[in-house]
C-alpha cells in the first residue's frame, strides 16, 4: 500500500511534464504541470508518513534478469529522504509558474518541465529501489534529466559549458556505481539491496566498495575535491532548477552513501576517519570559496559544498562510532546528519528561490550591482533572512537543531572517549565553529549587499516584489524551517526510525536534547518579540526624526561609496589566500592625480582550474592517438563490441 502510493507519486512527477505538453495554451500547460506535481507531492508525503509510522512495505516484480527479483519498497530511511524531495519539488514547481512560465519561454518551458519532473521522479525511484538495477535506472533518469534541466537556456555558451562539465562528472559517478554494484554482486551473488550477512564479503572487498561509493556518491554530493561541477551548474540553471539541484539532487549522493554503508556488515576505522576528514575540508573550503564569490548563485552553490561537508562530518563520526561500538555517539551523529539533509533541502532551496526573485526583477546575479532591494521586496527579504539564519545554524531555526546534534556527538567523544582514533573528531569541533563563523560572515555579506543599504545600480532601483505564487512557495519553506526549529520533537521519532536502518538504535535517545532546544528556541523568539514590541511602543510615543545616514561629516555621500560585498569579504579572503588564489586586476596608480581606473577580482575554482582542466587537456592530447578507431560507423562499433566479448571469453577461459 505504502509503496503503491510512492510509485503513484513517482508516476505523477514523471508524467507532469508530458501531460502539460498536451495542452495548447501556455497558461494551461503551466497549471497542469503544477497540479500533477502537487498531486504527486501529496501521495509521496502520504507514503513517507505511512512508512515513518511503521507501515513500510515492499512490492516485488519478478524478473528474468540475473541478480534476483526487482524489489521496490519504502522504509524509514527512504521516507526521511522522500519528505524533502516532495516538499522542495512542489515549492519549486509552484514558483516556476511565475519564474519560467511557458508564456515568456515558449521554446524552453515545455522541455524544462519534462526534465524537471523526471529529475525528481528519478531520485524518488532511487529512494524506493531495493534492487541495484532499479536504483541505477532511477539514478540515470535523474542524472540525464538534470542535465536537460540545467541546460534549459542553452543559447548561452556559459550554460552549455556548465552542462558539459556536469555531464562528465555524472558519467564518472555512474561508472563508479557500476563498479560498486558489480563488486557487490560478485561477493553476494545478488543485486538485491539487503544487508550482507557478516563474513560473506571479504574485508578488502568491502573497503573497495566503500571507496567506490565515496567516489561515485561523493561526486554527486559535491564533496571537496569532487565539487567542481556544482558552482557552474547552479549558476547556469534557471533558479528553480538550481534550488532543485541543491535541495534534492545532491542529496542523492548522501542517500547512496548511507544506503551502501547499511549493506556492509563491517566498518574499518579508516572509513569514518576518511569521511570525517573529507567533511572538515569540504566544510571549511566550501564556505571560504563561497565568501569570495560575487555571483549570488555561485555563492549559494559553494554553500552546498559546505553543508555537504557538515553532513559528512556527522556521517563520518557515526561510522567511526559504529566501528568503535559507541551506539549513543553514532545515533547523535547520524540523526544530526540526516536532519541536516532535510534542513539543507529546505533552507537552501528557500535561499535560491529568494535570490531568484531578486534576479528575476533586477536581471543581475552580481551581488555588487544590487543593494537596497529590501525596500521594494520586503517579503522576499524576510524569506532570505530566514533562510540565512537557518543556514548559518543559528537559533531559533532548523539549522541550529541539526548542527547541535552533530556538535553533541562530537562533544561526547571529547568528554568520554580517549585514544588517537578519535583525534579527528576532537579537531572537528573547532573546525565546525570556524565554518559557522565564516558562514555567518558570508550571509551577513550577501544579505547586506543585496537587500540593505542603497541601490548600487539602476537594475536594483527597478526591483519590484515577486508575484504571489513565488512568495507562497518561499513562505511555505519558511514555515517548514521554523516548524523544525521550534518543534524538533515532531521530527525526532522519524530520525530515530531512519537511523535504525544503519544502526542498532535504542529509541527515545533524541527526546531530551530536542526538548531543551525547543524550549530555548521558543524562548529566543518570545523574548525577542517582547523586547521588540516594547521598543516599538516606546519609539511610537517618543519624538522621531528622519535624515540621511551619518557619514562622519562628509557632505555628499553616494550609493557607490557603500562598503561593497567584495570589500566586506576582503579580510577573510586574504586570510584564505593560500587556498583561494584570487585573481586581481588592479591598476597601478602613479601620478598625484591618477586618471579613471578600474579594479576587478575573481576567485576561480582551485581544483577545476589547476587540476582537472589541465589533466583533461593532457588526456585529450593522449587520446588523440586512438582517434583512428573512431570511424563513426555503427558496423565498426559492433565489431569492437564483438571483439571485446571474444577477448573477455578467452581471458576468463584462461584464468578460470
Amino acid at each position: 500500500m505504502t509503496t503503491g502510493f510512492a510509485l503513484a507519486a513517482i508516476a505523477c512527477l514523471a508524467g507532469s511534464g508530458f501531460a502539460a505538453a498536451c495542452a495548447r495554451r501556455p497558461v494551461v500547460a503551466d497549471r497542469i504541470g503544477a497540479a500533477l506535481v502537487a498531486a504527486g507531492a501529496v501521495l509521496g508525503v502520504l507514503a513517507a508518513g505511512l512508512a515513518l509510522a511503521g507501515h513500510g512495505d515492499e512490492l516485488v516484480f519478478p524478473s528474468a534478469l540475473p541478480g534476483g527479483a526487482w524489489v521496490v519498497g519504502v522504509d524509514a530511511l527512504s521516507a526521511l529522504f522522500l519528505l524533502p524531495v516532495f516538499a522542495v519539488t512542489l515549492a519549486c514547481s509552484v514558483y516556476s509558474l511565475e519564474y519560467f512560465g511557458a508564456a515568456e519561454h515558449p521554446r524552453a518551458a515545455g522541455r524544462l518541465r519534462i526534465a524537471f519532473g523526471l529529475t525528481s521522479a528519478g531520485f524518488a525511484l532511487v529512494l524506493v529501489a531495493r534492487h541495484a538495477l532499479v536504483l541505477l535506472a532511477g539514478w540515470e533518469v535523474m542524472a540525464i534529466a538534470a542535465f536537460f534541466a540545467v541546460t534549459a537556456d542553452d543559447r548561452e555558451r556559459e550554460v552549455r559549458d556548465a552542462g558539459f562539465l556536469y555531464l562528465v562528472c555524472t558519467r564518472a559517478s555512474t561508472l563508479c556505481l557500476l563498479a560498486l554494484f558489480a563488486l557487490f554482486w560478485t561477493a553476494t551473488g545478488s543485486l538485491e539491496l539487503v544487508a550482507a550477512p557478516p563474513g560473506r564479503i571479504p574485508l578488502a572487498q568491502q573497503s573497495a566498495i566503500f571507496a567506490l561509493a565515496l567516489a561515485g556518491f561523493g561526486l554527486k554530493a559535491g564533496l571537496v575535491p569532487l565539487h567542481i561541477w556544482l558552482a557552474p551548474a547552479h549558476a547556469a540553471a534557471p533558479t528553480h532548477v538550481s534550488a532543485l539541484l541543491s535541495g534534492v539532487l545532491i542529496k542523492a549522493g548522501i542517500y547512496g552513501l548511507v544506503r551502501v554503508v547499511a549493506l556492509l556488515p563491517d566498518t574499518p576505522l579508516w572509513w569514518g576517519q576518511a569521511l570525517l576528514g573529507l567533511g572538515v575540508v569540504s566544510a571549511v573550503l566550501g564556505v571560504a570559496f563561497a565568501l569570495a564569490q560575487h555571483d549570488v548563485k555561485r555563492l549559494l552553490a559553494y554553500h552546498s559544498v559546505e553543508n555537504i561537508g557538515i553532513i559528512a562530518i556527522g556521517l563520518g563520526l557515526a561510522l567511526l562510532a559504529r566501528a568503535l561500538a559507541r551506539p549513543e555517539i553514532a545515533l547523535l551523529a547520524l540523526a544530526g546528519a540526516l536532519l541536516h539533509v532535510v534542513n539543507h533541502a529546505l533552507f537552501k532551496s528557500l535561499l535560491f528561490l529568494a535570490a531568484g526573485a531578486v534576479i528575476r526583477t533586477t536581471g543581475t546575479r552580481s551581488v555588487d550591482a544590487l543593494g537596497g532591494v529590501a525596500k521594494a521586496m520586503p517579503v522576499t527579504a524576510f524569506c532570505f533572512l530566514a533562510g540565512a539564519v537557518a543556514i548559518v545554524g543559528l537559533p531559533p531555526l532548523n539549522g541550529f537543531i541539526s548542527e547541535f546534534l552533530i556538535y553533541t556527538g562530537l562533544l561526547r567523544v571529547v568528554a568520554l572517549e580517549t585514544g588517537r582514533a578519535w583525534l579527528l573528531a576532537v579537531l572537528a569541533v573547532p573546525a565546525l565553529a570556524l565554518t559557522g563563523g565564516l558562514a555567518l560572515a558570508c550571509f551577513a555579506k550577501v544579505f547586506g549587499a543585496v537587500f540593505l543599504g542603497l541601490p548600487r545600480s539602476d537594475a536594483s532601483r527597478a526591483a519590484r516584489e515577486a508575484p504571489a505564487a513565488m512568495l507562497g512557495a518561499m513562505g511555505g519553506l519558511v514555515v517548514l524551517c521554523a516548524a523544525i526549529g521550534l518543534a524538533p520533537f515532531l521530527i525526532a521519532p522519524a530520525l530515530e526510525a531512519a537511523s535504525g536502518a544503519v544502526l542498532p538504535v535504542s529509541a527515545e535517545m533524541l527526546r531530551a536534547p530536542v526538548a531543551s532546544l525547543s524550549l530555548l528556541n521558543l524562548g529566543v523568539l518570545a523574548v525577542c518579540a517582547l523586547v521588540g514590541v516594547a521598543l516599538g511602543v516606546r519609539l511610537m510615543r517618543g519624538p522621531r526624526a528622519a535624515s540621511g545616514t551619518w557619514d562622519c561629516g562628509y557632505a555628499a555621500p553616494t550609493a557607490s561609496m557603500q562598503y561593497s560585498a567584495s570589500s566586506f569579504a576582503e579580510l577573510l579572503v586574504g586570510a584564505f589566500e593560500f587556498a583561494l588564489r584570487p585573481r586581481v586586476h588592479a591598476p597601478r596608480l602613479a601620478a598625484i592625480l591618477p586618471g579613471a581606473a578600474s579594479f576587478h577580482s575573481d576567485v576561480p575554482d582551485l581544483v577545476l582550474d589547476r587540476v582537472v582542466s589541465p589533466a583533461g587537456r593532457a588526456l585529450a592530447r593522449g587520446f588523440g592517438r586512438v582517434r583512428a578507431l573512431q570511424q563513426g560507423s555503427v558496423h565498426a562499433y559492433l565489431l569492437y563490441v564483438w571483439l571485446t566479448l571474444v577477448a573477455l571469453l578467452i581471458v576468463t577461459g584462461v584464468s578460470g
Partner: protein
Amino acid sequence: MSFADVAAALLVPVLFPPLLLAVIARTKARLAGRRGPPILQPYFDLARLLRKGIVRSRTTTWVFFAGPVVGLVTALLAALLVPLGTHGALVGFPGDLIAFAYLLALGRFFTIAAALDTGSAFEGMGAAREAAFSCLAEPAAFFALLVLVKLSGSFSLGEMLGPSLPALWTAGAPSLGLAAVSLFVVLLAENCRIPFDDPNTHLELTMIHEVMVLDHSGPPLALILYGSALKLFAYGLLLVRMVTPFELTSTATGVAASLAGLLLLAVLIGFVESVMARLRLLRVPSLLVGAGLLSAFGVMLLVG
C-alpha cells in the same frame, strides 16, 4: 534550586553588568591620574538614552531596529546559561555551551545586518572587521571550552564549572591555565576592548564595534550599550568561574565570589587598556590565531 538561587540567577545578570563598564572606566581614570565618572554613570546613561527620541536614517529598514533587540536578548540569554555559583545556571542542559556560542553569534549576525542597513561606508567597514575577527575568535573559544569538556567529562556549563572544578585544576592545571589565557584574549576581542578595538577612540576609520552603531540613537542605542555590558558579563563570568575553583557551598558566598571575581576582572581589563595601545588592525588576526593555538596546545596535552 531554591527561590534565592533563582532570584540571584535572574537579578544579577539584569542589574550587575553596567557596573563592569563603570569599574573599567574608573580604573583607567585612576591610572591616568584623573578622578573619573561616578560609579553609577552607565546606569545614568542608560536612563538618559531611554528617555530620548531618535533620529533614523532614511536608508534603513526594520532590520536596523532588529539589530539592537536581538543583540540584547541573545546576550541576556547567553548570560543566563553561565552558572553564577556552584549551584548551576538558571538554564542548563547537555550541550548548552554550543547554545552559548550560537546565541552570541545570532546577536552578532543581526548587529552586522543593522550596520549594513545604513549603507554607510564606515559602518560597513566595522561590520566586516567584526565578522572577520570573530571567525578567528570562535575556534579559540571552542578550543578553550574543549579543555573543560575533556577534563570534566561533561558538556553542560553547569557541570563543567560546577563543584568538581577544584579536582579539574589538580588534574589538568597546565591545560586549564592555557585555556584561561586564551579565553581572556577572546573576551577582549569579542567585547571590543584594547588591544583589539578602542571603545573611546575618535577616529571612525579605526573602530570596530563603535563604528557599527554610529547611526543608532535614543532607546535603540541604550539597548546596544546594555547588550554589550551583558556580553562582557557573560564572557567574564565564564572566565571567572573557570579560574576560581573554590568549594563554596552556600548560594550567597558563591555569588559573592563570582561578583568579586568579575569586579577584579574589570580592574584587570582597565589595567590592560591603560598600559597597552591598540594593535594595528593587520596584527589582530595573528594575536587571535595565537590565542587559539594556546588553547589548542591545552587540548593536545589532554588528548595526546
